[in-house]
């Protein structure tokens, strides 16, 4: 018996399910079955050449997993979502795995894409792991995908704000021009309540507000496009915003003094600033030293972003005297109590 109730409950659920699971049956294909197999071999053989380049493209459009070990069974460190950025998968994994690229082996796992292992020194390592060697066409496909990412980045940088539908059309044209048959742009616009602005952008990642490499979905052959703020606004909220959050964990601000401080810090942006203040949601903790100040009755900054109009900077504050935030998982912006709007 485990001390964790969930573990016991899951064990019971598994036991119940497995007790009623039908025993798998294995049988050789009959005459009709063999005919189907033969036909499949013929058809697959016929399309193999075309499929090779296509699957290499999709492989290159995905990320790379670095497995520190010669197989999954003896792996110690796993790193996922490594971007090749023009390097070979072995070169991309080398710094993460702290091994020279020459001592790494890249394989093609049908389910997980490119997987890099430490070389075992024995030939046929990928095959022994039940996966394929990286196809010879991978390097060309990777360069092809790299050209696409570069073109998408250039599209995004060409204007400060490009409408999502326009960006989608231009992405479609780029995909056609660079030879990505079957790929298309897909608009994934946020609902109004969490709308982030009138501009089209690629999905944000931790290191970028709009990352073309992160927009490639090789499972569905699409380039994802979100809506967001203009580039200039993202730049302001991304850099100054985090500085403000950190600053509010270094000393005690009143609601009024933090607003003065924020306005001074954002003065160079020449944008209207909108403040919203709530009490913290029960059970949540603010990091970066802010919780202590919040508990002492100080006001802290919890978020800096762009309003749906694309030009107003929204600053979310928390202090104990404000109304509590919604207890539900999603807090619509309307739940924030506007306390001041600067001209």
């Amino acid at each position, binding site marked *: 018996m*485990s*001390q*964790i*109730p*969930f*573990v016991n*409950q*899951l*064990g019971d*659920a*598994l*036991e119940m*399910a*497995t*007790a009623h*699971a039908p025993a798998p049956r294995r049988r050789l294909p009959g005459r009709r079955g063999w005919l189907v197999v033969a036909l499949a071999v013929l058809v697959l053989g016929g399309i193999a050449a075309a499929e090779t380049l296509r699957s290499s493209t999709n492989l290159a459009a*995905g990320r790379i*997993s670095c497995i520190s070990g010669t197989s*999954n*069974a003896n*792996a110690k*460190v*796993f*790193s*996922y*979502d490594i971007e090749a950025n023009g390097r070979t998968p072995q070169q991309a994994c080398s710094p993460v795995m702290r091994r020279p690229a020459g001592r790494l082996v890249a394989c093609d796992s049908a*389910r*997980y*894409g490119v997987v890099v292992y430490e070389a075992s020194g024995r030939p046929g390592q990928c095959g022994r792991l039940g996966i394929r060697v990286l196809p010879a066409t991978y390097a060309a496909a990777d360069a092809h995908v790299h050209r696409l990412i570069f073109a998408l980045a250039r599209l995004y940088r060409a204007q400060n704000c490009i409408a999502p539908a326009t960006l989608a059309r231009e992405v479609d044209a780029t995909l056609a021009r660079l030879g990505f048959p079957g790929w298309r742009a897909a608009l*994934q616009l*946020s*609902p109004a309540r*969490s709308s*982030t602005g009138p501009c089209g952008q690629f*999905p*944000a*990642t*931790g*290191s*970028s507000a709009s990352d073309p490499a992160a927009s490639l979905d090789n499972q569905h052959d699409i380039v*994802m496009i*979100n*809506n*967001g*703020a203009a580039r200039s606004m993202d730049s302001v909220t*991304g850099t100054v915003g*985090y500085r403000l959050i950190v600053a509010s964990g270094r000393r005690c601000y009143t609601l009024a003094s933090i607003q003065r401080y924020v306005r001074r810090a954002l003065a160079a942006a020449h944008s209207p600033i909108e403040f919203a203040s709530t009490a913290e*949601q029960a*059970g*949540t*903790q603010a*990091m970066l030293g802010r919780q202590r100040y919040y508990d002492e009755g100080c006001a802290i900054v919890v*978020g800096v*972003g*762009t309003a749906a109009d694309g030009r107003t900077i929204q600053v*979310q504050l928390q202090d104990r005297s404000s109304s509590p935030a919604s207890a539900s*998982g*999603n*807090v619509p*912006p309307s739940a924030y109590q506007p306390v001041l709007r600067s001209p």
Partner: protein
Amino acid sequence: MRSDAELLLASRQDPRAFRELYDRWAEELLAYFYRRVLDPDVAADLLAETFAVAFERRRRFRDLGRPGGAWLYGIASKELSHFFRHRQVEKRAIRKLGVMVPVLDQESVQRIEAMIDQDEHRQTLAAAMEQMSAGERDAVELRVISELGYGEIAARLRCSEAAARTRVHRGLAHLSNLMEAKP
């Protein structure tokens, strides 16, 4: 006591042997998942899918002298890899097998969190967080520390819900990597 390999071979005919194997490895695998994803709900789902896959593939297990646990960890690492690549736990085997995965209760969450050395983990976590970019740290903080839903994270980060998920999962993957890489 039967070895893991013996239990796996016996489970082909006797599902109770599979339960014995589950009882032996479930907590350790749960801790393995939790250390990497830092989210008890995700860790619980990964555990369920791992054992569902293991049951489905038990006939493919060959006793080559390696511990049966290594075979389970192989499945677990694949499920983890799928989670980090696709930002969601694969539940194909759970559905196929018809497992009614129980809801994770508060007591279980507390005990899962208590399984890992909190002090050492906290120090490792703090050091790893310092190495992350501001955007990643913010997303991870909102999800893991503040325990906010993706809708609210999206509202706070002023991005779409899909982008918030991407940020959080990329951040967690990076954080997990940084914590693993720590000597």
